[in-house]
């Protein structure tokens, strides 16, 4: 296909250079072609390569030597342990332990230097201590001369240019791992050679015939008006856009934001509360007997001895205690056991968002009132693809004179439609220790079929009356993690809290589609 697009000035520059020299390496082009910088060269080269106007003729690999952290410390000292050791011996210090005592290098370095000198036959051990076996040129001195000295002057040292013995020494002292202990670091470079193609030559000729075109529009042009009458170089339109690194909110937090918006739109006010709860608010105030299975050590995380959460008011504790024991003034017969007041103070990781509802009831809520919370809760579970140690629950209450079972069903219908986006749903009797009647909402998910959509009920009088609320209260709760996974297309719940930025960046989120229900858009 004929190349229709004009050449960019950078491209033209590069092509001209290659036409002149025939073949050239990347580094040579950058330094000699007149292109402004390496970045400009790389961009121009990629464009030209992709359009077949230049081609890669060959590649050469080369290795250069640099100093590692240890090597740099030798350079600062002005010598390496082997040379220093020979120097000490030459000056008559023949007792190795005495040399080891010098603080120029540490014990281990002196030791390994002695080892290398013995192996190289430069030093021998005799009855009188250490002696030099050879006074002539040696690989260590050579190494200092051809590696350390040029590097200290900022010159490049190529591995292939070193004498064989020195090259071996350098290789043996540049470990691939533990670079922090390396004397040398070997860097390999690939040199690429480019040539202009026949097609490139023609494109350049065409471009030169056409004269200069305007590329980027500059402020100078606009000020001076030189753009008038100029011909603008056409840009290629079907290239992928360059990537912008953007900040972003966490996908799960965006899901929670969307749920929060829904509830506020439905007239709910948000509740907040502590992560470490007293057993009082977590269980007792919810009329869960202290012997209830969900309060066992294997169902909730308890906090170590000696820690506490703020003490609830004694009058409220008394009313709750009495209700547990014999029903108090609630018309109930109670659970008929001895309520342990000390247990109310034990600190537990909030196991249900209902704890927040209990706190809200006790704090003199508005009537009529609607409250919700996005509560992080904890449950004693093995962490796997479907369980996290902490999870988000949406939780709430509705208080009002004359509220009844049918309002409860109406509220659940609203959740099914607005939050879960379900067209089909059903209500079933459920069991929760703190509600009666209790209802479970089931919603039909397009992919998964019937799934649980939350539990709800009217709070038992044994819950409301001791906390000072006399009107009926609807309570409901629902784990959000699963719905969020569905909305985000995840199959492993651990991905909701992944520490891997690339996984996080790959998550595809359409925040406007995260929760159900329509808006008012025409």
């Amino acid at each position, binding site marked *: 296909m004929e190349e229709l697009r004009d050449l960019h000035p950078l491209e033209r520059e590069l092509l001209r250079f290659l036409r002149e020299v025939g073949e050239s390496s990347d580094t040579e082009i950058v330094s000699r072609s007149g292109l402004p910088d390496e970045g400009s060269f790389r961009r121009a080269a990629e464009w030209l390569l992709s359009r077949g106007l230049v081609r890669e003729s060959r590649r050469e690999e080369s290795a250069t030597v640099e100093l590692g952290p240890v090597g740099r410390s030798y350079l600062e000292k002005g010598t390496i342990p082997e040379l220093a050791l020979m120097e000490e011996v030459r000056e008559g210090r023949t007792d190795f332990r005495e040399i080891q005592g010098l603080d120029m290098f540490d014990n281990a370095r002196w030791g390994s230097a002695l080892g290398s000198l013995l192996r190289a036959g430069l030093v021998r051990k005799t009855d009188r201590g250490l002696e030099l076996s050879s006074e002539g040129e040696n690989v260590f001195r050579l190494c200092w001369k051809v590696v350390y000295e040029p590097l200290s002057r900022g010159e490049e040292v190529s591995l292939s240019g070193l004498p064989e013995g020195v090259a071996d020494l350098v290789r043996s002292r540049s470990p691939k791992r533990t670079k922090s202990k390396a004397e040398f670091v070997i860097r390999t470079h690939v040199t690429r050679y480019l040539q202009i193609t026949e097609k490139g030559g023609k494109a350049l000729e065409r471009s030169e015939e056409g004269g200069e075109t305007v590329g980027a529009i500059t402020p100078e042009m606009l000020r001076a008006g030189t753009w008038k009458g100029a011909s603008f170089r056409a840009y290629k339109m079907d290239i992928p856009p360059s990537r912008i690194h953007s900040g972003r909110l966490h996908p799960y937090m965006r899901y929670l934001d969307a749920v929060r918006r829904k509830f506020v739109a439905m007239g709910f006010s948000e509740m907040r509360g*502590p992560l470490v709860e007293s057993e009082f608010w977590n269980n007792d105030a919810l009329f869960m007997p202290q012997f209830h299975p969900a309060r066992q050590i294997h169902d909730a995380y308890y906090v170590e001895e000696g820690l506490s959460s703020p003490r609830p008011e004694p009058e409220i504790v008394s009313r709750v205690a009495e209700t547990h024991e014999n029903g108090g003034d609630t018309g109930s017969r109670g659970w008929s056991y001895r309520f342990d007041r000390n247990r109310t103070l034990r600190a537990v990781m909030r196991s249900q968002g209902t704890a927040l509802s209990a706190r809200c009831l006790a704090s003199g809520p508005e009537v009529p009132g609607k409250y919700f919370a996005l509560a992080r809760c904890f449950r004693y579970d093995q962490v796997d693809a479907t369980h996290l140690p902490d999870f988000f629950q949406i939780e709430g209450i509705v208080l009002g004179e004359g509220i009844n079972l049918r309002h409860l069903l109406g509220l659940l219908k609203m959740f099914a439609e607005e939050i879960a986006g379900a067209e089909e749903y059903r209500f079933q009797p459920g069991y929760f220790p703190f509600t009666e009647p209790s*209802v479970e909402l089931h919603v039909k998910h397009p992919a998964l079929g019937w799934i649980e959509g939350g539990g709800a009920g009217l709070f038992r009088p044994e819950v409301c009356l001791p906390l000072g609320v006399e009107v009926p209260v609807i309570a409901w709760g629902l784990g959000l993690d699963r719905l969020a996974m569905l909305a985000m297309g995840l199959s492993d719940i651990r991905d909701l809290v992944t520490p891997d930025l690339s996984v996080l*960046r790959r998550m595809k989120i359409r925040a406007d589609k995260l929760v159900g229900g329509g808006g008012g858009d025409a």
Partner: protein
Amino acid sequence: MPKIEVGASDLKRLSGLDSLSPSDLEERLTLLKAEIDDWRKDTIKIELNDTNRPDLWSVEGVARALRCGERGRTDHLRDMPAPSRKVTVNAAMKGIRPYVACFRATGYSLDDPALEALIQSQEKLAESYGGKRGRAAIGFHRAEEISFPVSYGPAPPSTVFHPLGEEGEMELAEVLSRTEKGRQYAHLLEGMDLYPVLTDSSDEVFSFPPVINSNATGRVRPGDDDLFCDVTGTDWETVQLAATILACNLEDRGAEIEPLRTAYPYETPAGRSPVAPLLFADSLEAEKARMESVLGTTLSDSEISGALSRMDYVLAEVVDGSVRGVLPPYRCDGLHPVDMIEDVAIGRGYHSFQPVRLSGYTIGRVSPRQLLADELRTVLVGMGCEEILRPVLVSETKLRELTDTTGRAVRLANPMTAEYSVVRSSLLPGLLETESVSGHAAYPHRMFELGEVVRVDDDGLTASEEVLAFLACGNDVDLGVAHSILGGLCRARMVNLELEESEDRRFVPGRSALVRIDGEAAGMIGEVHPAVLDRWGIDRPGSAFEIGLATL
């Protein structure tokens, strides 16, 4: 939640519902707050959600509820003969294991499914409802091997006895140390000098509750048609209810129940001479107007009594605007009139109640803390930062050893794994962990988490606090990056930022500071110490800050 396994054909026969399809059963199970967990060939696994209804934890109980839902209530244990045999209780039992309830079931020859069901309900009642055999434990025996009357009394640990399934006789103490069941339940008898046993008229020990039966009487087999059941335990109601439920189950199978009188030398809630199985007849009373106001609908008297009959209530009558219901003998979970009101709703079916929309007007509000958090998140994202979300529970290693976090943090008393054993007191470890596994993700890395941490004061009082942490990592990152982000935040909040030189082991000496916002200490900022980076395996420099939101 208890789960039971029932035979599909057994369930159909007992319930009288011959053509039971999965969807049909699923629908009917809602009546008893239960659902199908699995249905493979003839075996159905059913999950029962009501932890207060142990009567449902057996195929007989499920079948009974389905039957009543279809055809209305039936009688239970109505034509029992007067008790002619008795159990005598020794006075010492009051301090050992005070209560016992026994009955006999005759005239029904156990078939395979019935025996399996019997074993399963014994297990569910004793383990789940009976508190792992503490509050109540159950034994079944071949009644023909027992000579009446029976005694319930204490025995020294040296008493010799042949436990079920063992080669020969051994002492009770040996039963506890040498047999599997013995070791499993020995803790229930710990510290006791005398153990509970049931002996027959010839002084032969035939049961060692709550551990094991004797080999002679306990070997119940298909074809047996004369059973003796003992329930012993520490809680009166649990013991009696378990016995009554088992008697109803066997009666539903076709057995005749012969009650036994128990003679106590001490008082029980039912006197010194109660009869088992006890017919619980808890009654609940509710104003009809209240019932109608809770359910949001008007109901005729017959609708109410019809609904309660489907729930097997013995009696449901409306007199002078008041509804009185008597629960069936196997239930004692009626605490409050609302429990009966729910039974009316379930008996009628939830589908018969039309949802209505709430009408009261309320104003919705986002919590002020969340409004602030959202504001900060927006500003941070605008500055190119990425939001991170990490679990609240962390490991001691990540918080302390790797990150060098100081200050007290909440430790769990019962962690499941060390990985999640501490409640985070700082968000930085989570960000450092993110960086440590994200070296392959394109740079720049500028991340933040806004979330709750828990702090502990000197008195051990815990408090959740909203905190913002930021971490930047990359080849050319220095203190300036974190500082400029923090500066941007403070400008957006129109507050004054000051840094006050301060050392912190997490940061490079001389490059860390206390953050003061409008003069108040808000947190720390610094260049992350290479030792911290090294321990996390991060090979690029980083800078970070962590501040409480209270000052912003």
